[in-house]
C-alpha cells in the first residue's frame, strides 16, 4: 500500500491511497485503502490522512475519519490524535501506520509496526526519508 497527504500554499489539504491489497486475497476482498473515512480522508477543517496495515481493523475503527474527529472535537494535536487512534487499532489486534498532515501544515506519522516506508518534505527544511521505526 502507498499513500500521500499534502497541505498546499493555499491552506488546502488532500489525501491519496493506492494498493494491491494482500497476497493471496480471495472472494473480492477489499481493505481500508479505497474506503473514504477508513484508509483515506481529507477535510480542510482538520487534516488529511492515508493509512497502511491490516485493513480489516482500519475499517472497523474508521481510522482516517477518527483522527480528524480527535482533532476537530477533542482539540488534540496531530501527533496525539494519530497515536491515540493507532493505539485503538493495536488494542483491537491490528497493526500498521498512518501519515497525517494538519490543516495548519503540521506533519505526523504513527506506526505500530517495526518499520514503515515513509518520507516528508516542507517548504522549509530538509526532506526526510525513513524506513525503520527508530529513524
Amino acid at each position, binding site marked *: 500500500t502507498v499513500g500521500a497527504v499534502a497541505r498546499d500554499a493555499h491552506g488546502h489539504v*488532500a489525501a*491519496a491511497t493506492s*494498493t494491491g*491489497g494482500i497476497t493471496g486475497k480471495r472472494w473480492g476482498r477489499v481493505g481500508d485503502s479505497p474506503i*473514504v473515512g477508513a484508509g483515506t480522508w*481529507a477535510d*480542510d477543517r482538520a487534516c488529511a490522512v492515508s493509512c497502511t496495515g491490516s485493513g480489516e481493523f482500519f475499517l472497523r475503527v474508521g481510522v482516517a475519519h477518527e483522527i480528524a474527529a480527535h482533532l476537530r472535537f477533542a482539540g488534540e494535536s496531530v501527533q496525539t490524535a494519530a497515536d491515540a487512534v493507532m493505539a485503538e487499532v493495536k488494542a483491537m489486534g491490528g497493526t500498521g501506520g498512518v501519515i497525517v498532515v494538519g490543516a495548519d501544515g503540521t506533519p505526523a506519522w504513527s506506526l505500530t509496526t517495526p518499520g514503515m516506508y515513509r518520507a516528508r518534505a516542507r*517548504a522549509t527544511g530538509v526532506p526526510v*526519508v525513513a524506513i525503520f521505526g527508530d529513524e
Partner: protein
Amino acid sequence: MDDWTLLIHGGAGILERGKIAPEAEAAARDGLAQALEAGSAVLRGCGTALDAVEAAVRALEDHPAFNAGRGSVFTYEGRNEMDAAIMDGRDRSAGAVAGVVATRNPISLARAVMEHSPHVMLAGRGADGFSRDHGLEQADADWFALPERRAQLDAMKASGGSAFDVDMKYG
C-alpha cells in the same frame, strides 16, 4: 504564504535493520525520494495539494518496490486487483475504485471517478470500463505481474498459509 507540507508512505510492516536486503532497502529509499520530489515539485510551484498527492502516488505506483500499481501483490487466483482512493479537503469530494485490473495508475482512475462521475466509488469490471471510456492509460496483466510477487504467492500456497499482508510478512 508559501508554506506547504507533503508526507508519503510505501507501506508498513516487519521492516527491521538487517532483515531487508541492502539492494531492496536502497531501492525503497530511492523510490520514496523520487515520489517525494514528484509531489514537492507541484507544491513548490504553488500547485494544489490534490495534484501533489496524485503525482506522488503515481510515482509510487510505478515503482516495483511498493505494493500498489506495478508492484501489486497477487490474489489467490494469480491476478492483480487494485484499489485506490483520493480526497480533496476543500469540499470533501472524493473518488475511489476497488478491484480494478487494467489501469496503469489506479489513483488517477479514482480521481477521474471524483471529477467525471456523480459517484464516489466504482468497483470491478464497471470501474475498468469507466477507465477505458475516460481515456485513462491502460496496462495489461504482464505489466503488473512481477516475478517476486508471484514468488510470494507461491510461497504462501506452498506453506498452506492464507492471505497475508505482504508488508507485514516480507517488508
